[in-house]
């Protein structure tokens, strides 16, 4: 079930990163005498990311988006499954080799910059870690890259506390780019920023991508942001990918009931429309006690008998990948593996 993941348009381009059956579980202590239980934060996620694309990952909080991001960055070893960069297992790349190819931009620019370092020193840190260049060369390179992200050189000797949120996020982007990585994993890079600054940062990310030929994994709970920047979107629910399609198709014709509910929940600026009703109810299921069968069935408006017992697999059809029993009859043989 791990094969056959490349969508038709993906087959032509080079696959940069491939994740196969990634699972990450945490053991959660329940108190002194109750023993431990296992929480599957990410449960069998397989992804293939093509060079130059922007893969958006959406889902509500607790669905495993950030855990997935940390695994893709090599910050968290997967419990099972593997990650390959250009076909090579990342375990062979080592800490420094991985850092040269994949870099992060985090959500909160107030905690992602060390308050005791100057901006130039923060941006140059990856170079220092890799042992590249002399101190003066690293500083020069840091100032170049700061100017590329729109920060004049006089910011170089300031401290993060002297900068606004948007300026800090530019610093974080500069730090991510200084090693010329192929891929940048952006974990909610705009959700901590003012609305007016969000679009500046998004446009900057977009410009940098076309200029430097970058590949992004773009994690967000904000569908509008994802629609703006992503070329393909993966929808996650309870640690699984439930739908994976190119952006236009997903927003025009969502198929998984959860994707439909997410799209229905987007707030519009027109007050007359009121606050949208998602039909999902309030209860996000406890990841420690995931429901049997399809993880979404307790909240699903289109629940069928087999949803309670059989977990649907992610299946390829003409318009993308979806994990839902509703679309299985179309595919050949709707039996669960």
């Amino acid at each position, binding site marked *: 079930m791990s094969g056959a993941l490349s969508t038709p348009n993906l087959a032509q381009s080079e696959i940069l990163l491939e994740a196969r059956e990634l699972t990450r579980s945490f053991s959660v202590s329940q108190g002194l005498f109750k023993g431990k239980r296992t929480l599957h934060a990410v449960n069998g996620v397989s992804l293939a990311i093509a060079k130059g694309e922007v893969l958006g990952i959406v889902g509500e909080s607790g669905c495993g988006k950030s855990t997935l991001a940390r695994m893709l960055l090599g*910050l968290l070893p997967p419990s099972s499954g593997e990650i390959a960069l250009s076909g090579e297992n990342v375990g062979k790349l080592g800490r420094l080799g991985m850092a040269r190819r*994949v*870099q992060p931009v985090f*959500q909160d620019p107030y905690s992602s910059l*060390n308050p005791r370092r100057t901006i130039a020193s923060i941006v140059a840190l990856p170079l220092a870690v890799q042992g590249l260049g002399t101190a003066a060369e690293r500083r020069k390179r840091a100032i170049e890259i700061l100017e590329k992200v*729109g920060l*004049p050189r006089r910011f170089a000797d300031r401290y993060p*506390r002297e900068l606004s949120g948007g300026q800090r996020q530019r610093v974080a982007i500069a730090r991510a780019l200084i090693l010329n990585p192929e891929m940048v994993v952006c974990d909610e890079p705009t959700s901590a920023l003012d609305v007016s600054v969000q679009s500046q940062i998004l446009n900057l990310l977009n410009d940098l991508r076309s200029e430097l030929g970058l590949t992004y994994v773009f994690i967000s709970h904000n569908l509008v942001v994802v629609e703006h920047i992503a070329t393909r979107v993966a929808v996650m629910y309870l640690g699984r990918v439930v739908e994976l399609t190119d952006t236009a198709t997903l927003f025009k014709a969502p198929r998984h009931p959860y994707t439909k509910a997410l799209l229905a929940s987007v707030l519009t600026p027109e007050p007359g429309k009121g606050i949208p009703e998602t039909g999902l109810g309030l209860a996000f299921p406890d990841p420690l006690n995931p429901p049997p069968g399809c993880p979404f069935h307790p909240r699903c408006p289109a629940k069928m008998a087999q949803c309670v017992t059989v977990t649907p697999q992610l299946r390829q059809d003409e318009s993308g990948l979806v994990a839902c029993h509703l679309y299985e009859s179309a595919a050949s043989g709707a039996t669960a593996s």
Partner: protein
Amino acid sequence: MSETALSAPDAPELSETRKLLRRMLGQKAFVFGVGLLLLFIAIALLAPVLAPHDPYLQNLTARNVPPFWYEKGNWAHPLGTDPLGRDYLSRLLYGARISLLIGISVVIISGLIGTTMGLLAGYFGGRIDMLMTFLVTTRLSMPVILVALAVVAIVGSSLWIVILVLGLLKWDRFAVVMRSATQQVRSLDYVAAAQAAGASTTRIILGEVLPNIAPHLIVVATLEAASAILLEAALSFLGLGVQPPLPSWGLMISEAKAYMFFSFWLIALPGTALAVLIFAINLAGDGLRDVISPEGRT
């Protein structure tokens, strides 16, 4: 100048050190505490120059001379003499050396032990954390005075034994505070960013974590220095610490207790010196925390 949105003219900037200095001077209690502390340090360093007499020289013809403000006092011994005829002012001045030496040395030893333990436990968590918590609990279950008593009974007592015993016992607060501070910093994204840049654990602990918990370290160090000085005085008072004829303030109080009702100053003077020194250290430490913690910065 194409980045117009970001290059609005700034107010004339002060350098970092000038800003820090300005914040320091804004705190009256801090300035006062540091001033007093510097005075004590100057006294300790200049004791041989300032002292009118040899602090160890006994003069049996001038025993129990009262300070100058008594009728029987004289200016040859401005603060009088003790029952062995030693000049009390000289002994008090030399006593500052012992107190400061103890405070600083104990903090260096216990700070190194406690900070290392706290950093490792807070950063790695898990079993290392459990081990450290166990060690701290074990250490806290042993009263310092009792352990010191046992050690002194076995190996004898001297200034350096006192420093060593206190240094090896007083790391508990460093360990606990550094552990929780490290846990907080460890979960921040700049540590994750350094990891994603491929930085080694040593580099992250020394370059990213330690500078950010240094304010806590300094505050604990001042409190522990004050407490170590008090403990030395207590040990010396019990006869287990610094041994005569060294002019430790605690020992001076102890030696004077038999004369409490006849020569009040023999107890009051070293007691006051001790209290003022502790007060100065605590004021300075408290003020320092306010000045250097990043949250207080503008």
